[in-house]
Each structure stands twice: as C-alpha cells, then as structure tokens.
C-alpha cells in the first residue's frame, strides 16, 4: 500500500516537472519576468559589493594596521549572518520610521539590490582578501622596481589574484541570487516588481502552484550551474587571448 502511495507521489512530481519544463520552453512571460529581475538585482548587488569591497580587501591584504585582525574576523563572522536577520535590520532602517525612511526605498528594487549587496560583501571581502594574500608578496616589490605607481602595483597584484577575485564575484552572485530573507523583507515580493526567483518559489509553493514553483527552481539551478560554467570557459579563453596578443 505504502509502495503504491510512493509511486503515485513520484508520478505527481514527474508531472509537475514536465509541466514546469513546458512553461520554460513556452517562454511564459511571468516566469521570465521573474528570472530577469533576479539576474538584474543579484548582478547589480554583486557589482556594488565588488565596487566597495575590493578596496577594503586590498587594504586588509596589503597593508598592516592596528585592528586588522579584528576587522578580518568581523567580516568572516558576517558571512554566516542569517539572511532574514539582515533583512529585518534593513527593513527597520528603510521603513518610514527608520533613519533612511525618507529615501522611500522600502519595497523597491533598489532596496533588494542594496540589501543583497550588504549581504554578499563579507563573502566577497573574505575570499578576495585570501586570494590577494596568496599572491607572492614580492610581486609588490617587483611591480615597484619595474616603475609601477601605487595604483599600477595594486592592479598588478589583483591580476595575479584574478582566479580568486573571479571566485569572490561568483560566490557573491550565487549567494545573492539564492537568498530569500533580505529580498522578502525589504522587497515585499510584489508581483511584477520585486518578486524574484526565491521569493516567487516561496509564494507559489504556499499557494499550491507547484508547476511554477518547480519551474522557477529548475531555472535557479540552471543559472547557478550556468554562471559557473561560463566563468570557467572565460578563464580558458583569457589564456588563449593572452597568448594571441603576444607578438612573435
């Protein structure tokens, strides 16, 4: 009897997957609207985190100063912050009675982007700092003795740490696109405006629209897998282009 129930459940799931695939192939506008917003918000968050996180990572890895270990520890700790807790903190900040309430950001795409950027910054800094620290410290002296300025030296170091820098970006994006708590609390999951893959999965599952939920889940996994594959391919292409540029 229980075996029959298991078979029936599996059939249900299979049917759900088939319908989900049909939705994906049909180009359902709701589905693809959610996908587009996810990519846009998470991509923007990763870029923002890179912009303000890279100088911090460079400072932590290349300079010695008092309190450096504490700051590094602080960022490492923040990696594990529950997204819903951060979402709550940001909600309180962006809400009408909060210190940034006057900006009117709550339940807007900007709030999600900012919130996800704050969420992923510790991961980016942590990975990037480790990557830069792994670079031969003599690269700094090498660049300087070849005539590089401070900024040129920093670029030289970043180039040497490129694999780690890329990894920090991928990890940031993956964390952003897969998180739920921040987007839900500061974005509001408004259909057609601030609903993204994770919040939509949550809504459709609660409503019983399993086809849509499964379809969104499949898309999410494809994105995460796909981005990683693109980066690996890009790294290989980078080497080919370097070899192509060097004259005989």
């Amino acid at each position: 009897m229980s075996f029959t129930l298991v078979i029936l459940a599996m059939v249900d799931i299979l049917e759900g997957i088939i319908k989900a695939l049909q939705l994906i192939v049909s180009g359902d506008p709701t589905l693809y609207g959610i996908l587009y917003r996810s990519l846009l918000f998470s991509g923007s968050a990763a870029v923002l985190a890179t912009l303000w996180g890279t100088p911090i990572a460079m400072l932590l890895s290349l300079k010695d100063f008092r309190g450096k270990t504490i700051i590094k520890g602080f960022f490492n700790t923040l990696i594990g912050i529950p997204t819903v807790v951060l979402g709550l903190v940001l909600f309180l900040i962006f809400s009408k009675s909060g210190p940034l309430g006057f900006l009117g950001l709550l339940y807007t795409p900007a709030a999600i982007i900012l919130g996800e950027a704050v969420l992923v910054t510790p991961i980016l800094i942590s990975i990037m700092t480790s990557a830069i620290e792994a670079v031969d410290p003599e690269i700094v002296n090498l660049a300087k003795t070849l005539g590089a300025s401070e900024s040129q030296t920093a670029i030289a170091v970043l180039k040497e740490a490129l694999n780690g820098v890329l990894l920090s970006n991928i990890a940031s994006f993956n964390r952003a696109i897969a998180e739920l708590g921040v987007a839900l609390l500061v974005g509001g999951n408004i259909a057609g405006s601030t609903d993204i893959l994770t919040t939509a999965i949550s809504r459709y599952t609660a409503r019983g629209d399993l086809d849509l939920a499964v379809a969104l889940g499949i898309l999410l996994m494809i994105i995460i897998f796909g981005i990683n594959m693109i980066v690996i391919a890009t790294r290989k292409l980078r080497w080919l282009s370097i070899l192509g540029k060097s004259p005989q």
Partner: protein
Amino acid sequence: MAIIAELKNVTKLYGTKMALGSVNLQVDEGEILALLGPNGSGKTTLLKILAFLEKPTLGEVYFSNRKVTDQNMMQMRMKSTMVFQKTVLFDTTVYDNVAYGLKVRKTPKKEIVERVGRALELVGLEGFNKRHAKKLSGGEQQRVALARAIALKTKLLLLDEPTANLDPKNAALVEEIIATVNRELKTTIVMATHNMFQAKNLPNRIALMNYGRISETGTPKEIFGKLSKNLVSFASLENTFVGKAKITENGTTLIDIGNNVEVAATSKCQGKVSVFISPEDIILSRTHFVSSARNVFKGKIVEISNFGSVVRLKVDVGKPFTVQITKRSFNEMKLNLNSEVYITFKASSVQIL
C-alpha cells in the same frame, strides 16, 4: 670616474633589528660592484635601498648627485631596477613579463616589441615570447627576470644572488649575461653574492659585508691577494682551515689541520692559526710527480661543479680541498667522482692569518 649612487651613513632598522649599520658606499658609473658576505649580512637590504624599495632609517642616499627624497623616489625608481634572489614572475607569458616595465613607462608598442626581442636575444631566449613564464625551467625563469630588467635600460642594475639557485651550467650563462650587459650596454651593476669564486672573477670591485656593515672594499686582487680576517671570518668555505702550527728544524712551518693532514707554509708562526689556499694555486694530477712543492696529498674526488670553461673539484685528502682546473684538462684526464688523484701546492701558496 663619475659616481652613480652613494650611501652616506645609512642605517636600516627593522624594529630593533639592525640590518645595516652606518654604511658608506660609492658606486662608480659603469662598474660591476659585488657585495660579498654571508647570509644575513645586509646585502639584500642594501640593494633594496639602492633600488629605492626601502628607505633608510638614518642617513642619506644619492643618485646621480641628487639626494633621494619621498618626493622624487618614484622618479628615481625609474633609473634603477632590481632582480630578486627568488625569481618572481607575473602569471603570464614571457613577452608580457619582459614588456611590463616598458608598458608602465608608456613606451610605444613598436619600441616595446623591439626592446623585448633584443633583451630575450641577449639572455638566449629568442622565440620564447608566447611561452608561459612560470612553466619554464629555473634557469630560464631567472633569464626572463634578467631580460625584464635589461629591457628597461636603467642606469643601475641590482642583482640579488643572481646565480644562487641555479645549476653550474645556468650559473655560468647568467654570469656571461651580466658581463655582456655591463660591457655592451655600459650598465652599472651591483650584485650581492656569497660565492667567493664568483666574486673573484666577475666584478671590478668588491665590498665585504658582515653584520650589516661594510668591512672592506677593493679590487678582487686586493681583497683575495692578501687574505684578510674579514674574508675568512665568513668564508669558512673552500680551502679555509684551522690548525696548530709549529716551526720545524729547517725553518718552515707545519700546520696540523686534522685527520693526519699537515700543510707546509713559508710564513713563520706557532700555535692556533687559520690557513687558506686558493683553488687556482693547487695542481691536480693522476699520478704523483716530483717537484719543488712541499705539499703533496693523495685523495679522491668527492664533488664536481661545472662552471662552463672551468671545473671545480672537491678532493678529500682527509680534509676537503677545492681545486679549479680547465674543462679541457678535466676531459683529458678523464676524471670522475671517486677518481684517485694527487693535489700539489707550494708552501708559499699557503696564506696564514
């Protein structure tokens, strides 16, 4: 001769540790100056100060008669470049490595291609442009680092133990490149080394360093011709022995250096002494031959080092002696490890402190 760089009372402290203590040094334009000293004597620190990578804690640095300050340090760095003891390469092709300094100086692309090509030719790496620098052998990597410095055509080239991590064949190649760069490009070179043999043959002048100070400067002939306490204090290398001397009935001095090895010297002395015999003063033979030389010992070859046109052998006669012979002699005598040989040297070749 014009002075290209000068250190005046330069002291460098790292915390409480003194790396350099009140160093005064002039570097003449066009010369090869060797800083000779053991590890930890301050050679690298001195080079980094000349490369303007480090600032002295006390004292002044001058380059082409201009005092080096915080304001002009970046500008001064363009006039000298340093090749580090441990080869450091960018994670890219040989071409991009060698071209880096030229790109930073905004050199036109055509000129970069030309200068990179010339530099690679000078170091014997023509056609290596597209090879990945980090995948080359140790000797090739060191030559890439040299080419990168040579391409810049700086007035001053600083080399930190340029052959320390190389096998004898590559070491000889690098020494030849250094001599060529100095001769053809008229580049002033300051090189740090702990290799006495290298210090004898390559530079115009030597500065002996120990404990962060320069104890002596002079030509190789001045430094090695008359052995000084400073040289032996760190030398403890080839052909330097401590023994007990006694004056014999016929007026010569016999020094017991241990393991039944007694060396005859012309200088009169008694008691505990240090002795040094230059490798080039020792004759190597397959058989014993009669001569006026007082010191003849039988032993076995325990080490062979190939330096291109010369070969250095370590012969164990109870104590290890380093002998230098030409490559041709080495081949003609058909010498190998464990070959039984005789070493012969005159009593007058034995230098006593």
